[in-house]
């Protein structure tokens, strides 16, 4: 039974889908990393993803254009991010609570739109794997790494780009300074609110994209509450990765690999109760968080609104 897992085909399958399943986590958690690095905890990721997923699906469903769907999802995410920025930066609302508010808004709104505009579960033909000459034909590696769709590659590229921005650019320096010591940044003429607006809205945009990657690249359907906690896992992954893009990616991969494993366990009818199998990635996340979170210090100004002179 259990030895069914250890055939080449199955192992390749597990790894390939693990890489693919990490996509929405990557977009969402990298966006969240940017936002948290500047000092804003956005718990509304899940809601932004749901609206992004619906928008991408609906636009693709009605126009047949996948890229239009992606852009629309990013735009909706951006709007949600701007709203979150306004509430937490201008109105100085408590970040955790406003985030939950945006989550509930996204959950309800995507459901309402779904009921009114689609009514039933439909499917679209989403992004397809790209065949890269030579690379895709490599044995094993080709199937695992180089037979994925464009949004998967985009997600991994985003990790590298974000690392570069945070560590090699003046913008990254400003983002980190604003998240660690907004007073210091302000005294040097860095606009704390402008930087936070930027990171929170880009974070929202990426959450929208994360939603799109789910509804028009990974599953190719839209259902009510289809993210089922994925956005919150993405927030947890940011803590797990200690606010460093590549470590966040490591967390996303670990989580998705375990997830992929449990899916294959179910597919192969291995007699482990499916409830336990489904639980595995989450239990793992909690354990990993407990082990890792204690040794990394979050950005000092995380969740603290900034006011000059305080």
């Amino acid at each position: 039974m259990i030895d069914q897992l250890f055939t080449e085909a199955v192992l390749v399958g597990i790894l390939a889908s693990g890489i693919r399943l990490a996509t929405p986590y990557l977009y969402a958690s990298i966006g969240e990393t940017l936002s948290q690095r500047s000092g804003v905890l956005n718990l509304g990721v899940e809601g932004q993803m749901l609206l992004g997923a619906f928008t991408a699906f609906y636009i693709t469903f009605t126009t047949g254009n996948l890229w239009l769907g992606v852009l629309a999802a990013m735009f909706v995410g951006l709007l949600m991010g701007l709203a979150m920025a306004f509430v937490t930066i201008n109105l100085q609302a408590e970040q955790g609570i406003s985030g939950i508010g945006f989550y509930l808004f996204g959950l309800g709104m995507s459901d309402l739109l779904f009921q009114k505009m689609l009514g039933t579960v439909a499917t679209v033909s989403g992004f397809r794997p790209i065949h890269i000459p030579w690379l895709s034909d490599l044995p094993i590696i080709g199937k695992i790494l180089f037979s994925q769709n464009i949004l998967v590659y985009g997600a991994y590229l985003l990790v590298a780009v974000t690392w570069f921005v945070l560590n090699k650019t003046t913008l990254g320096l400003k983002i980190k300074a604003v998240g660690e010591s907004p007073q210091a940044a302000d005294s040097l003429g860095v606009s704390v609110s402008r930087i936070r607006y930027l990171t929170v809205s880009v974070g929202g945009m990426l959450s929208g994209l994360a939603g799109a990657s789910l509804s028009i690249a990974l599953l190719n359907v839209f259902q009510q509450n289809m993210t089922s906690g994925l956005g919150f896992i993405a927030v947890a992954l940011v803590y797990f990765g200690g606010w460093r893009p590549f470590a966040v990616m490591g967390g996303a991969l670990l989580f998705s690999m375990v997830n992929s494993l449990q899916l294959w366990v179910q597919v192969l009818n291995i007699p482990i109760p499916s409830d336990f199998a489904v639980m595995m990635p989450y239990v793992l996340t909690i354990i990993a968080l407990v082990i890792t979170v204690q040794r990394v210090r979050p950005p000092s100004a995380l969740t603290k609104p900034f006011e000059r002179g305080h």
Partner: protein
Amino acid sequence: MTEKKTLPSGHSQILQMEMHGITKRFPGVVANFKVDFDVRAGEVHALLGENGAGKSTLMKVLYGMYQPDEGQIKLDGTPVTIHSPVDSIKQGIGMIHQHFMLVESLTVAENVALGMPSTRGPLTDLKKVSARIYELAEIYGLRVDPDAYVWQLAVGQQQRVEIIKALYRGAALLILDEPTAVLTPQEVDEFFVTMRQMVTDGHALIFISHKLHEVLDISNRVSVLRDGEMIGTIPTQGATKTQLAEMMVGRPLGEIKIRQQSKTSQTRLVLQDVCSQSDRGTPALKNVSFEVCAGEILGVAGVSGNGQKELAEVITGMRPVTSGKIILDTQDVTGKSPKVLMGRSLSYIPEERMRDGMIKEFTVAENLILREHDQMPFSRRGFLDLKAISEHSEGLIQDYNVKTPSLETTVKSLSGGNIQKLVLAREISRRPHTLIAAQPTRGLDIGATEYVHHRLLEQREAGTATLLISEDLDEIMALSDRIAVIFEGEIMGVVPRDQATAEQIGLLMAGVAETAAK
């Protein structure tokens, strides 16, 4: 007017900065009222005043952090408007804030580069920045390693980074907001050497302080602010401490006199090889041993962050001891809870009075019975006796001269001095055997400070064993019978007050152990 020179940093001078008739109002307060102030190239102009006199407000106006309601700022005769720190930096004004404006998790070079345009466009040019830091360090004698992380640096080094940061931005006029508050006496001397160098080179310096001897030592002119108004500007030459203090407070000050020690040898508090950890899990106290006797004040001197906070918390039962013993009135109380310690007549004036001393949303009366709220006569079978509480509070408020509109006023709306009086009233009126006073006058004005000192000395007369933890060396020297110096969690030495000199204490504060001491 003299010719404008180029400063060694390569930027041009500000020959004269003038502020005319600056008025700044906040809701309910006039922080500055028609204040005139000026500074010229090649001088140190000291700005003196008590807390809340309006010094910081005036300087924040100059640095662009506040907009004045009335008044004008002129640089070399030309009126300027400064909307934000960006503007003031462009004009050549730099500010070294009392609480350093550094990002601890970034390197020195990154801190210096922050907010500045880079020669590589969107990419950082940290190599160039580092080279420039070395250059400036060379010119001004400010040694720092550009690649070090700020959290790794000692306070004195962090201050150098702040100065380099300002010079890097081309500051010709520097506002120094209480720069010596966090330094040891030797570091202050070193800092003054840098200041004199800068003045000789043609910088204009504004020096904010409330330490009179430093002002007399370093400045060319002194201006005194009181209650938001300019009391006067006088040349430092010929000025005396008494004169300046009277200008600050508006009345003559009493002298602190220490009477002969009442010779009781009864030991009240003993620490034996006490070790403890900081919040980060690093060792904060290393084999701390000392004793405090009835009727004496043991002062603990040291630069901020050398274990003072942990020391107070360990004795008051708020932080676990990892090894060692604490003995209170001959009984071992190591690891006992604050409640048990309270029962053993230990009182505590905490460093963070708004966080650990008072519940700011509670009323004056509620705060005054916080310790004994569940005991007779304030509480009977679980019910509060409001009459007893208000009588008790009424009495304390009169005895301790607390200015509050009523007993029902929440503590957060009182001034710092009055809040500290409430803490003293609650802690001292219990007639403690042992009193831990942590930074009891931090942030208080001269009047309130005087009051606290008076009360502490009164306790000493009454036979209380007092441990006074303070970062203000003048305060330690004025009140203590013996002085213990703490450095990186270790007691470097305990010196009787009459044998102690500021130099000797300063060396111990910097971690230089006494080899010559017997």
